């Protein structure tokens, strides 16, 4: 690759903060299937906005979530990846990387859902690398905007889930 991890300037824009109701949306996961946030009511949802399919950093991030999926499942949490790529790209990318969670196409109107969450970069027409943990009632409980080029990892997500559901600890170091 080598990993592109430059520390960038802080961003002035803000993503939706914790405490807000997560805006509902309905996006294609495959060319003939749609997924709505409300489908997962009663379960926590991890929304992972990312800039693009096929770029090396995203691949690391999504491959990591794929690997950590059993930990997310302890909380009965669903992971949804969202980028502006079309569903055909998502299908190919997902197959190539063996991903076991849906990738949603914020494709038409382009970036609408990303904008709704404050996670759209108008300048380059891609989603930010932003994470949201939404609880079983559909309320945002944690959100994080990653600096450009830095893959945020999974630790923040697991910490947020543990804070919301303290009785279901993930594996790992205490």
């Amino acid at each position, binding site marked *: 690759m080598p990993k592109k991890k430059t520390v960038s300037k802080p961003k002035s824009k803000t993503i939706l903060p914790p405490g807000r109701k997560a805006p509902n949306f309905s996006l294609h996961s495959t060319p003939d299937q749609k997924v709505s946030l409300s489908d997962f009511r009663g379960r926590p949802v991890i929304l992972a906005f990312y800039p693009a399919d096929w770029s090396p*950093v995203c691949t690391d991030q999504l491959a*990591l979530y794929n690997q950590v999926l059993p*930990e997310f499942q302890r909380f009965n949490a669903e992971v949804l990846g969202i980028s502006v790529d079309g569903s055909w790209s998502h299908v190919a990318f997902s197959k190539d990387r063996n991903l076991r969670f849906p990738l949603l196409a914020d494709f038409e109107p382009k970036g609408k859902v990303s904008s709704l969450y404050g996670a759209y970069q108008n300048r380059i027409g891609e989603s930010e690398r932003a994470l949201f943990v939404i609880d079983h009632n559909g309320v945002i409980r944690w959100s994080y905007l990653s600096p450009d080029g830095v893959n945020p*990892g999974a630790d923040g997500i697991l910490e947020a889930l543990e804070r919301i559901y303290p009785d279901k600890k993930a594996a790992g170091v205490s």
Partner: protein
Amino acid sequence: MYRKTSEHTPRLKLLVGERDHIQGSQDAKVTLLKYGDYQCPYCGEAYGIVKRVQEKFGSDLRFVFRNFPLTEVHPRAEFGAEIAESASDQGKFWEMHDYLYEHQSYLSNEEFFLQYAGSKLGMDAQRIRDEVATHAHLPRIREDFMSGVRSGVNGTPTFFINDFRHNGDYQFETLVGAIEAALAGNQKKEKIVKALKPRVTKKTKKK
């Protein structure tokens, strides 16, 4: 976004200790820790670079390796981790670690590594074969992996320098620069301040 970045400054959650594979002295001034996957080509590239970095810093640096097999993308990574851990039980962790990274393209060929263990390293190859077959070391590998996840490991390889995640790349010059900064003082705090408030830091007002 300042606050969020600082909240998320990744630090090592499981501190380096007796459980770890360590090269170098406990008195070394700087610890470089790598979370790696034996099938990952970038880890293979970083392997040679770390060797050069170790040579450069000598006794000032100790190096620690922890397993981070991304088996969904690297199906042979777990075998690599298992055989290295098994070799560790017979006191030959680093020999096997090095051999794995020097022969990554052979990872599907278990006999290739077992033969090396038996005939070149004089180890009990049957014991290794059994331990790999029964996944005897999987709990430890899993512990390594989760310690990485909880510490903000975000891909392979991920390095930590003195318990802080190294966010730069793993090229020789970059690693050397980061280690030199750590040797000179507490580079981490400085780096975080820069990352958080590049425009506000008075001391860096050079223009």
